[in-house]
């Protein structure tokens, strides 16, 4: 444990290694680390930005969706309205048609009835004439009693 030249040797070695470290070791390592730090920070910032963008896009999409829904609802609404209208119109038309058909049927029935009545009446007139002829046993003068018979037929 003597103090000797080792002391001087160590001082020289000390400065040598410190110089080496300062010249060749420290700067590249610390530069690389700082660069990486910056890269990571940039990456994180980009990720932040991207997530923010995503949020915005989602919001926009949601808005679009809402708009589209609204629009669709409007379309459906108007379509419904139109359908109702068409149905109503059809109903009215059908009702009118039905009335018309009913009316024509009624008119036809009436006509038939009248015709039948006319035929009946003429037949009754003929019958009653024939009956009267038989009852009287004599020929009734067609011309003399035509007024009477016609009156009778009209009463039927």
């Amino acid at each position: 444990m003597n103090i000797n030249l080792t002391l001087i040797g160590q001082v020289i070695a000390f400065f040598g290694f410190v110089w080496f470290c300062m010249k060749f070791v420290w700067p590249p390592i610390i530069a690389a680390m700082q660069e990486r730090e910056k890269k990571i920070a940039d990456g994180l910032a980009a990720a932040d930005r991207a997530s923010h963008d995503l949020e915005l896009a989602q919001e926009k999409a949601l808005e679009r969706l809402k708009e589209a829904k609204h629009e669709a609802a409007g379309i459906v609404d108007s379509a419904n309205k139109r359908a109702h209208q068409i149905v109503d119109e059809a109903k009215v038309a059908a009702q009118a048609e039905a009335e018309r058909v009913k009316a024509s049927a009624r008119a036809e029935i009436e006509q038939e009835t009248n015709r039948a009545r006319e035929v009946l009446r003429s037949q009754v007139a003929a019958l009653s004439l024939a009956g009267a002829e038989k009852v009287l046993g004599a020929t009734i003068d067609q011309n003399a009693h035509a007024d009477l018979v016609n009156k009778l037929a009209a009463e039927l």
Partner: protein
Amino acid sequence: MAGENQTVSDYIVHHLTNLTYGKLPAGYERYDGSIVGDGGAWVMAHGGTEAAAMGFTAIHVDSMAWSIGLGIVFSWMFYRVAKKASSGVPSGFVNAIEMIVQFVDNTVRDTFHGRNPLIAPLSLTIFVWIFLMNLMDLVPVDIVPELMMLLGVEYHKIVPSTDPNITFGMSIGVLILILFYSIKVKGFGFARELALNPFNHPLFIPVNLFMEIVGLLAKPFSLALRLFGNMYAGEMIFILIAALFSAGLAWMVPAGFLQIGWAIFHILVITLQAFIFMVLTIVYLSMAHEDH
């Protein structure tokens, strides 16, 4: 383990003796009875007494070799990483090195508020180098000396930081930096600081000078002695535990437990000592940069 005919104290002394190469003074009688001729002789010291007789003109070959070797290991390791350092994804080893660099950088940032490109690499060098030197303490105490013995090298101490020359060498390096930056930053203010602190009166200049210079010198002294003391004590305990193994079969088990326990505890100590040396260096240099 030591030879059969060796006493425990021989064993301990052997383990605490550095491999010394130096100049023996003229007329010195060596261990084998030969007398050193005129002008002295540069030889490997045989034992502690010869090493002591060499005085200052000697060098601890083992301390120096391990210290520089570990410094080269440090430089090589970090240089390799520095060469392939990129801002891409770091792989395992690069990651580990960068963790250390980051740690040192943070410590420096927290403590040193000036702007000086030397401080951070200086701290990194101190931290890792001292850590590696201390780490040698965890190598079982007998392995390297025994191997060296087989190679014909008589003494070998592998923990450079248990050599006060090494620790003082580093702390003197720090002192030189403290003085350099004090003068560079404060100029004449540094002299005034030494002379007029703490008593700001011309009459007290000698007292102030004495106190401030003692205070200044205390910094490297405390740095060096703290590291040396801790590592020397740690190594001493390792050696004592190793000696305990030779005390008989019954002592093997407790000695084994002691060895493991102390080694685990020592992992903490070596890291802590490296860290303390680094932090105090930063603090001292930060003080050197600040004007009062």
